[in-house]
């Protein structure tokens, strides 16, 4: 009980810190930084789009880890957190897709250009939407958890595919993070890196909340039965 109380306090702290940092970085991205030489003001979307995309891909990695853990241990908690990470990641990747399309309209002239990065992320989106369609189609708990865990393991192939799409195929999508460092001015890095942490903190809070609510629901079902 003491540990639970402590965890709730920590999550509350992570949530508040994440949102305050995001507001601060939002100020940096929209007001503090000046317009970019070639892209003008449209580049500011990047400070919201890229952290959402990075965190969602990390989140889908969490789904993979929890799914593998479920297949090994067959425990309810792993299944619950596999679903929560997938759910919140799907929301974040949708935000990244929408913001990316808005940026593409300014930079490339069209909202959708079938660029390798856009196409790969759209495939990823459909795979994880399929994950939820699969879960809703199976009623029995074990069968649902096992099938969706196997689906998540194979579906994860779309995550490295989305990340590497700009390197494998000829793409117009800017590549910001290289193995040698970031292709950004130091002032932009000062806003961009904290924004990734802010979005990650918001993500963790949402996953914790969703996971806990599902856990309570499951416990309640057990008590009723």
């Amino acid at each position: 009980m003491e540990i639970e109380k402590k965890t709730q306090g920590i999550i509350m702290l992570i949530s508040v810190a994440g949102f305050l940092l995001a507001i601060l970085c939002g100020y940096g991205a929209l007001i503090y930084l000046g317009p970019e030489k070639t892209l003008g003001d449209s580049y500011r979307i990047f400070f919201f789009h890229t952290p959402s995309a990075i965190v969602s891909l990390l989140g889908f990695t969490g789904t993979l880890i929890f799914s593998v853990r479920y297949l090994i241990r067959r425990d309810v908690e792993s299944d619950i957190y596999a679903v929560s990470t997938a759910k919140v990641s799907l929301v974040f990747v949708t935000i990244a897709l929408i913001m990316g399309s808005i940026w593409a309209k300014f930079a490339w002239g069209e909202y959708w250009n079938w660029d390798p990065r856009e196409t790969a992320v759209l495939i990823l989106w459909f795979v994880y939407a399929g994950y939820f369609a699969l879960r809703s189609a199976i009623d029995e708990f074990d069968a649902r958890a096992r099938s969706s865990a196997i689906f998540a393991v194979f579906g994860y192939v779309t995550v490295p595919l989305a990340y590497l799409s700009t390197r494998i195929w000829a793409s117009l999508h800017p590549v910001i993070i290289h193995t040698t460092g970031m292709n950004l001015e130091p002032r932009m890095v000062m806003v961009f890196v904290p924004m990734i942490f802010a979005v990650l903190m918001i993500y963790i809070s949402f996953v914790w909340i969703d996971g806990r609510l599902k856990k309570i629901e499951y416990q309640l079902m057990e008590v009723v039965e």
Partner: protein
Amino acid sequence: MNVLVGVFIAVMAFLLLMLGLQLTLISKVRRLERQMRRLKER
């Protein structure tokens, strides 16, 4: 510049709304967990 300030205010309002939602949900989790513990004790 004015457009950017407007966008910033909109983003800030959205983030504060989300923060309110998260804090509400965290306290809901706290309440439900307490009730669940009581239910199990019974």
